[in-house]
């Protein structure tokens, strides 16, 4: 409260001073002229001083004169697995973010990912940046579900990584270009199930393709379209719609929780999420392109 009173009185004093300068004696022009001169000079002086002394934008420079930051304790010990006298050389980060792949195969994608800066950082990382990516599973290709007006993002290869106990702890999500000649390490996402439970080795979705078709049949009374098969796709769920309460949605999604796209005999496409629920496309809060 003392701070407020101090500030209030200071502002009041300044306002009173300003008011007397501007108004002066009623009907006299000189105080106004003087005020203009003073204000003009101040503005010019501030500008010139700022220009010559320190580059910057409009305003008063931050002083930055407070107490120095307290040095933090050293980071927890990290065992470097490359780049030391007793370990192999670290991968050389590729220039740019896109890394050519020798073929459109899981093995080639994994090899390319290992050339990425993200992978290199995981090997040598410090502090809050050291996911363990030492136990890769086989990369899986996933297409984004495209709907009219929907946000388009690249198709991906998802590379699961296991913990020492065999559970799945991280996913590397790699964008793949349209011609499938290069990938880009895009994201390293948590591998645990959204409820915080460990995810079993190899499990992108606990729902099998046949179970997805059965779910549509049971829940929607719609059979699988003749000659069609369920396909694994990832769906871009608009988190903002959920956070702002515009829609109610709980099912996990994204490349790490792909849906089954089940073509129905009624001509509609259905989506079966990782909880086994079947939805019409129109019922899913898919993000629209802005």
């Amino acid at each position, binding site marked *: 409260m003392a701070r407020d009173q101090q500030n209030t009185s200071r502002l009041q004093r300044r306002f009173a001073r300003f008011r007397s300068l501007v108004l002066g004696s009623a009907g006299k022009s000189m105080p106004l002229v003087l005020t203009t001169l003073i204000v003009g000079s101040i*503005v010019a002086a501030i500008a010139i001083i700022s220009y010559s002394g320190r580059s910057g934008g409009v*305003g008063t420079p931050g002083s930055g004169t*407070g107490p120095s930051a*307290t040095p933090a304790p050293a980071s927890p010990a990290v065992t*470097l697995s490359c780049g030391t006298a007793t370990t192999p050389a670290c991968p050389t980060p590729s220039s740019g973010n896109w890394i050519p792949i020798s073929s459109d195969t899981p093995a080639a994608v994994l090899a390319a990912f290992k050339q990425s800066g993200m992978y290199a950082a995981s090997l040598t990382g410090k*502090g809050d940046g050291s996911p363990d990516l030492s136990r890769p599973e086989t990369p899986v290709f996933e297409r984004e579900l495209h709907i009219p007006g929907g946000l388009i993002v690249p198709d991906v290869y998802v590379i699961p990584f296991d913990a020492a106990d065999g559970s799945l702890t991280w996913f590397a999500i790699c964008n793949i270009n349209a011609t499938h000649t290069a990938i880009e390490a895009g994201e390293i996402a948590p591998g*645990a199930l959204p409820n915080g439970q460990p995810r079993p080795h190899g499990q992108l979705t606990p729902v099998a393709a046949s179970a997805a078709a059965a779910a549509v049949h049971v829940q929607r009374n719609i059979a699988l379209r003749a000659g069609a098969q369920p396909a694994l796709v990832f769906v871009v769920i608009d*988190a903002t719609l959920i956070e702002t309460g515009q829609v109610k949605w709980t099912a996990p999604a994204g490349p*790490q929780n792909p849906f089954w796209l089940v073509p129905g005999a009624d001509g509609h496409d259905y989506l079966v999420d990782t909880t086994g629920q079947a939805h019409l496309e129109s019922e899913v809060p898919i993000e629209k392109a802005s």
Partner: protein
Amino acid sequence: MGQFERRVTKLSLALLLAGGGLISMGFQTSQTAHAAPVHVSHSSSVGGPTWYGAGSTTWMVEATIGIWPQPSSSNYCGVETATGMVNYDALNSSASMPLPANYRNGQGPVSAITADNQSQSSPTVSHWGHATYTNYTGGYSNIAADFGTDPRSVAYVAWNYSINNRWYHDYVYRWQFASATAPDMPTQALDATTLMARGLEAFGEPVVAFINSGAHAVLVSGVYSYSGPNNSFPAQIDELSIRDPMGTPSYSGTDTSHFFVSPDQWTRYGGNNGLGWHYDLWTQYYGNSKDPDPSVGIYSGAHWSGGYTWVQRDNNTSNATSPGEWDPDWAFNGYSGYIMMNP
């Protein structure tokens, strides 16, 4: 008005115009961007890109466990991230966390802070007043009619509840601060990210970034970069480490609050949170109908919109302004480091 007075008036107006012109130019051509003083750098350069940011995963979890996750359809993200930021700062300074999970006899930080936000006096309310009361979480600390807490609120919460001798401010970046012509959107976002990373480099502590057009806030706990953010613009950032209050922290391998994104995800495609729901991150400017610009004070107008904003620790404590620049009401130009005196 006599001849002398007319001459003085002309001179005054000339000075005014010249000074104003120089200021409006923003001194763009000769700027060397600087957002915060450099004191502590946590980095490693063995083998890959260098880490700039929080030095301990254990502390990141400790700062947020039992407090996060926010309910998925709640507007607690600003309070949740500010809590994590100041708790980490305390741990980083060998102090007790100011906002532990059992804060205020078990009430918990989010409940206690939102209750405090119902006060209609300073410092909860800015020295310009408060925006139209929108909801309980935002309370009276907002200067914008925000769906949750706006960036001023987050800066205030961080400053008000942090350990002693800590200062936090909102930083704003719009391309006009650094360029004569507009770069493409990803470049703009990467420029802003570089400036935000300077706060990470300076203090080795997480910062609060407002994402998804302002609809959500996350902690950025660090970046990996091939060039030092403080010495390059934009820096060659390879990866950002995100701590998301929508996720559940854990000391084991089941932490769903932590993910990493490339600059392309951060600025072009967006990324996926622990549930796999899509975040736009910094692919879009701040601002939407639920997260508007300030409606009271000197920042009324296009302040956050058309750019990017984050809240970070700094050492701006001068009393050259009134109130002193320590006051969390002030926003700073992320490029120049100057207090912003207008939107």
